[in-house]
């Protein structure tokens, strides 16, 4: 049953130069999942981001997902409501694309997704704003010409460890058995701006550490460890080679001295008398034995 397509949402998904294969595949996967998305060529100027608004206008899009790759290592994602609306910048991590063989689910191309949010999204104002942005961006409008009328997969957005985790599951049975389709990624919020790619900052994430700082910290920690080890080694060396003090008086020398009582000094002038030793007259062994047997016989009879 066709109806009129009234919710005119169009999302522009594109990137800057210097992205790697994983990012490119992620972009393609998002375009596959969202039939209301449009593609554009790479943008080569990263500093003047407000031109993106003009690109969006040309393409007649009112939302934008812009992937910015820095240093060929870090990937940032901008999500914005194009002419006036708010925008947010995230650091993207842990990307897994549709092509991974461990993600075994499949869905119709262009089918409408269910969106599932963590209750934590309603607890903070900045999360509430992000939730609205996500809903408007990711939900496929009803009766969109490229969409399929069935609902057979679900996007989940969950907040854990101060990051937003995105998963995409295929609905197999209506009792709730699911298989993951992909893609999957983790968004680390940096800032929310009032305008699109500019404007006053509405929110800054206090727990965010830029990847550069993170890498720097790791390197400093490693360097500190090495330096500590070296210091310890040097100290030990120094101890070994340094001249030891010669103690003149041993402080502990008289710890065990117990003063004895004074004895009168006896000076013997005469030699002592020889001791009288009584010498026993012992008979020879044989004689002794004879005597013993005699003795015994006397008593036994």
């Amino acid at each position, binding site marked *: 049953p066709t109806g009129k397509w009234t919710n005119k949402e169009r999302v522009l998904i594109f990137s800057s130069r210097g992205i790697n294969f994983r990012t490119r595949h992620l972009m393609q996967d998002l375009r596959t999942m969202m039939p209301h998305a449009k593609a554009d060529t790479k943008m080569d100027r990263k500093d003047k981001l407000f031109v993106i608004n003009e690109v969006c206008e040309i393409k007649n899009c009112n939302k934008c997902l812009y992937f910015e790759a820095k240093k060929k290592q870090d990937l940032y994602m901008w999500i914005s409501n194009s002419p006036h609306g708010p925008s947010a910048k995230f650091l993207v991590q842990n990307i897994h694309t549709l092509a991974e063989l461990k993600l075994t689910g499949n869905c119709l191309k262009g089918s409408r997704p*269910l969106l599932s949010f963590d*209750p934590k999204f309603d607890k903070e104002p900045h999360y509430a704003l992000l939730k609205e942005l996500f809903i408007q961006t990711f939900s496929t409008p009803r009766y969109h010409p490229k969409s399929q009328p069935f*609902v057979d997969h*679900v996007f989940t957005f969950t907040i854990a460890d101060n990051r937003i985790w995105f998963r995409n599951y295929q609905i197999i049975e209506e009792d*709730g058995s699911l298989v993951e389709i992909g893609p999957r990624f983790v968004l680390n919020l940096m800032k929310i701006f009032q305008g699109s790619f500019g404007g006053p900052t509405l929110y800054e994430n206090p727990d965010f550490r830029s990847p550069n700082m993170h890498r720097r910290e790791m390197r400093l920690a490693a360097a500190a460890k090495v330096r500590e080890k070296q210091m310890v080694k040097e100290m030990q060396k120094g101890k070994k080679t340094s001249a030891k003090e010669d103690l003149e008086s041993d402080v502990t020398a008289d710890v065990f001295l117990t003063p004895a009582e004074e004895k009168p000094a006896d000076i013997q002038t005469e030699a002592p008398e020889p001791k009288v030793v009584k010498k026993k007259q012992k008979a020879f062994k044989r004689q002794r034995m004879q005597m013993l047997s005699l003795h015994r016989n006397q008593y036994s009879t």
Partner: protein
Amino acid sequence: SLQEAFAAGLLKPGMNVLVDKPKKLVNNVEGLKQCLADFRKDLPWVERLDLTNLPAANIISQAEEKASAPAAGELDADDDFQREMFFYRQAQATILEAMPLLNRHSIATKRPEDYFAEMAKSDQHMQKIRKKLISKQMIMERSEKAKKLREQRKFGKKVQIEVIQKRQQEKKAMMSAVKKYQKGMTDKLEFLEGDQKMNKESSQGSKKAVNKKGPSAKRKYKDQKFGFGGKKSGKKWNTKESYNDVSGFRAKIAHGKGGKKGKGGKQNKRPGKSVRKKMKNRS
């Protein structure tokens, strides 16, 4: 600047650590709320299809009565399995809640059988996935089989050793019983019967065809002479003794004087034509 401050009496003597001024982070709650109010679109649910819910109950942990710590606030992002299960259950809860809503708005969730449309992943890709899963299963099965075989072999070896030992013990007992009888210590011959009784019972139990004498003498001789698996170690070669042994020599046969097996041949030999004629004429 430190010295000036010290002079002014602000700093106390001792170690003064330079502390960073805590960064003032923007959290413009009012601004956020205002922005949200401006920006939000009040679309009917059918357009958005969003739901917010906690994960569905964890059946496994309930069954095991584990103290499942994760309420939503305590989800440990590093415990991979727990985390993924959390996401899974969140999605499940969404579906369970959404099904009745979708039915009410008559939005289908099941595809009819003959509805062919392009899928997000190509058929080729799905085949690759299937092949990978099957190969994983095969590897597991193979390793299971190998393990079982190993176990069986060990067990079989044990059993074999036990059987051999038992046989040896029996033989020993038998021999000692026989000797006792021979020496006249016991005049009962029960040990023989006992053995036979046991043997009969065991042979009835076992299915082996008991051929007491084994292969016949003829077979044994042939094996010895021609067989490849019989007595080895030079038994088919000549030795000095066998070479000098001329007992098998029959001069007549050797020199061809035996004729047809000596004199034995045909006892009833038919007379020749002339002799038969004579006989015929006579009779």
